Structure formats: structure tokens, C-alpha cells
């Protein structure tokens, strides 16, 4: 299954999703596409003034351009998501897109899709960390069996 992760650039979440045989929907792949697009020269990530206009699909022009530009990157991730893992209040080093307003909107849109979703608090201790990984792996396994049931 295609699993949306939040924070969307969390390498740990992305790795966990892959380990359980699913496809992580992470922002790195979208930025990678931008950076590798030939013919564009708008460093550092090749976002041009046209991109915030694609973000109008999610937020009106009164919403800051930085939010809409980020939303243009999230577009296909939100559209493709079949399941989602959202970590609440993560520390910056766990993953971060910089803008709190974008994060709020992305989380809302993913919740509104009514797809299988796990929301879990960022762990504060080793014990909580174990529980954190246990919950995520349990969720990912359940997705696997669900996908298997559908195929059967």
C-alpha cells in the first residue's frame, strides 16, 4: 500500500514503511523529481513562481505563497495516499517541513480522506520509543493483511 508519512521527510518513518513491504509517500521523492527536472534552473529545489499557483487547489490566494508552494509538492502524495502514519509533535531532527500552517493543512487533508490512519505521539523516553515502533509496525502489518484480504 502507499503510506503517507508525517513528518513527510522522516527517514525513520520512510524506512519503517519500506521494511514492512509498503511504499512510503515521502516528500523527498517529490523534491527529487523537481531537482532532476531538466531545463529548470531555480535553485535550490527548482520550485518556480508557477508552483504556488498549483497550491491554489488546496488554499486560496490569501494563504501565504510559501504554504501554497509546499502544498504543490504534497499534491500527488495526498492524492495517492492509501494509508497514513502521523507522528504528533515530533522534534525537528525527526523530520520537518518548516511551516506549521502547511503541516496543519496537510494533516487535515489526510484525515479528511478517511483512509486507514495511525496517529501517534512522538516518544519522550526509551520505553515510549519501543511502544512507538510497536504501534507503527502493528499498523503496517494490519495494512498488509488488509491488502492481502482484498486480493483474496
Amino acid at each position, binding site marked *: 500500500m502507499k503510506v503517507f508519512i508525517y513528518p513527510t521527510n522522516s527517514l525513520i518513518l520512510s524506512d519503517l514503511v519500506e521494511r514492512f513491504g509498503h511504499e512510503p509517500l515521502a516528500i523527498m521523492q517529490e523534491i527529487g523529481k523537481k531537482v532532476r527536472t531538466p531545463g529548470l534552473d531555480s*535553485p535550490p529545489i527548482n520550485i518556480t513562481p508557477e508552483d504556488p*499557483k498549483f497550491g491554489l487547489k488546496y488554499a486560496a490566494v490569501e494563504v501565504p505563497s510559501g504554504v*501554497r508552494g509546499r502544498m504543490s509538492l504534497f499534491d500527488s502524495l495526498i492524492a495517492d495516499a492509501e494509508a497514513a502514519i502521523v507522528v504528533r509533535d515530533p522534534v525537528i531532527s525527526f523530520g520537518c517541513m518548516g511551516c506549521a500552517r502547511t503541516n496543519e493543512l496537510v494533516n487535515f487533508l489526510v484525515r479528511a480522506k478517511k483512509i486507514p490512519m495511525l496517529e501517534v505521539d512522538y516518544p519522550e523516553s526509551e520505553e515510549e520509543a519501543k511502544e512507538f515502533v510497536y504501534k507503527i509496525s502493528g499498523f503496517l502489518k494490519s495494512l498488509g493483511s488488509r491488502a492481502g484480504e482484498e486480493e483474496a
Partner: protein
Amino acid sequence: MNSTGNLVRIAQLSCGAEYSGIQAEIDSAVKQVNAVMVYPEVDIEDIENIEEEFGLKVASADLKLMMARAKSIVTGKVKVDAVFVATCFRCAEAAIVRSEVRRYLNEKTGIPVISYSFTERTTAGTLLTRMEALTTTARRKSLLAREEQTGLTAGIDSGSTTTKSVVMKDNRIIGKGWVPTIKVLESAEEAFNNALEEAGVKREDIQAIGTTGYGRFLVGEHFNADLIQEEITVNSKGAVYLAGKQKGSATVLDIGGMDNKAISVQDGIPGMFTMGGICAGASGRFLEMTAKRLGVKIDELGKLALKGNYQNVQMNSYCIVFGIQSLVNSLAAGSTPEDVAAAACHSVAEQLFEQQLQEIDVKEPVLMVGGTSLIEGLPKAVSELLKVKVIVPDNAQYIGAVGSALLASGFILK
């Protein structure tokens, strides 16, 4: 152009610029003024701890990064000559951080700072004058320290509406010229010739020339000017010089034909400033149209406004089209021309207040300059809004030309 000067290192403290697609525009503007953008390095711990240290809690991580980067400049971890603080337009959280970061840098360092709120439509052209002013302040501190005009110099201010010129000798204005801008070079020639004629000197006797305003590059090249400088720096210098307020703090307000400037000045050097150029309703053009509709000359509008009360006129819009329509409707409903003139001045002043003065510290003395400052109702309206006395120096309409002539005298010995 001052881009021939030494390389200036500008720190970029921003949130959302790369995602708005305007980073290339910022880089282009910076390159044109022979500067390089640097991004102060910070550790992850610096970002995690900055809210506690800075005293401002915010939700967005990029804003925490901005504050951490500001701290690394203040503590000397990174050496820069100037700082560009920019965030998305219409982001309230970012506006608070932008303002406080600018204030923090202003109080803790002597480094010049400019701040800007951008959209995806921000271009290098929009940023160029700001970057030019920023790098000039960083690059030419000794030139800006000049407080007296020496020798025989001239200044030409090629503005969007009018072209002004002065000839100065030994710290005195001896000739002036003021003509409408029609063809940039021809108008500059005419204004300059008028100033020369009044001064009774020949062009070849002029020891140095400075140019400013929208046409500064073209006019500067034509006259082989010694100094070609944007209006922020020149107007700051000209304003405090003419008002005799060269030491200490001051605020310079200039409502121009095409844009407005609000500059916070310290010892004659611009610190924080804002430039607006989005709405004609906030410009001198609005007052020109009002004068035309009232059937009076622009220099009569101010006196008319002094006799009126803006509260007797209901203005439904700041817009140059719909605002004028409100004024016309008021006239049809029986309002007096005096009240309408006062309402027009109040409307322009209110926009200056709402759009620009929110971003700078308004420190007294408040100096109003430029041609619009002679429309007496306008300084009065600004004074009422800001609750401070507004000073209009003598020759306020020649501010750019005087500032240019003053700064150009620094080139005589070269």
C-alpha cells in the same frame, strides 16, 4: 552604480522563499549589487533552544531557524555585512518573527537590516532598490557620514512624476530646477539647466554630479555622474541635512508619485525601511486626480484640505478609481471641496500608516519630504494619525537632488 564596490556579504534569514519560487529572484538582485547571500550555519541544538533564549515561542520550524540564525550573527559566529529578513506576505506568525528579528539585530549589532514580505510575484526588479540601499549602507559608511556639502556640486533626482535638480556651493543651495518628467533625459537636461541658470554657473564648472530616482541610471550615464544612488540612501541623507537633524534618530516619510518610502534613520544612515508601490491610491497621483476633479491646482489642494474635515466625507475605498468615486459622490451629496480635499489627504496618510509604518519604528523627529509634503493637508493628516509633530524641511521637494549633491561632494577629491 555601486555594484562596482567591494563584495558585500548579506545574511538571508527567511521562511518560505524557496517554496514560493523566488529564491532565484533574490539571488539575481543580490548579484546585481555585487553581493553574495550567505546562510548562517546553526546547530540543531541552537534551533531547539532558541525559543527559550529569544523569548518568542512559534510553531514553525523555519521561523525558529530564522531566530537561531539571527543569534549566530549577534554572537559573532558568522560575519556578515548586512542582513535580509524575509517571510511570506500574509503570514501573521512570520510577520511577528520578522519584526522582532529585525529589532533584535538592530539593537544588538550595527549591521544594516532590511525586511520584506514576499509573494510568488516578487521579482528581482522589486528587490533591487532595496538590495542597493542595503549594500550601500554596508559599503559606503564613510561616504554616508558626510554632513556638509563642499565645493560646487549638482544633484539630479529623476522621479516618476517630476525631475528635480539643485546646484550647491559650500553647503548652500544656489540654484534649483523642477520640471515634470516627460522624456527622462530631456526633463533632466531642462531641470539641470534651470538650476545652473539660477546658480549662475556653467556646467563645466560643476565638480561632481550625483543622480537618484527612477531614471538615475540613464541620467547618470548621460551626465557621466560621479554618484548614481537609489532614493532610500539619498533621501535619508537629504532629509536630515535639510532639517538640521543629522545626529540621532529620525523617521523620513516620502510619498512619491509612484511609490512611498518610510525610512528609520540613525545619524543620517538608513536603518529599517519599507517601500510600497502596489497601490496608486496611496501615492501622489491620487492627490493629483483629486485636485483635477476639484478644479484646483495641486499646490492649492493642501491649503484647501487644511480648512476641511475628512470625517464629513465617507470614503468607501482607498482605490484610485473607487476612492475618487467616493469623493465624487460626496461632492454630489453636498460635501464641500475643503472636506473632500481633507478626505483625500487623510486617505493617503491612512494607507501610509497601515501599509508601511507598521514595519518601522517611528522615532521623532518625523520628517516628511518630496513634492507631496508641500500639500499641507498631507503632513497634517499624517501628524494626526501618528500623534506626533511632522516636520517638513525647507526645500523638501528637492530632497533627492540635495542628498545627491551632498553625497557627490565626497567624490571631488578623487
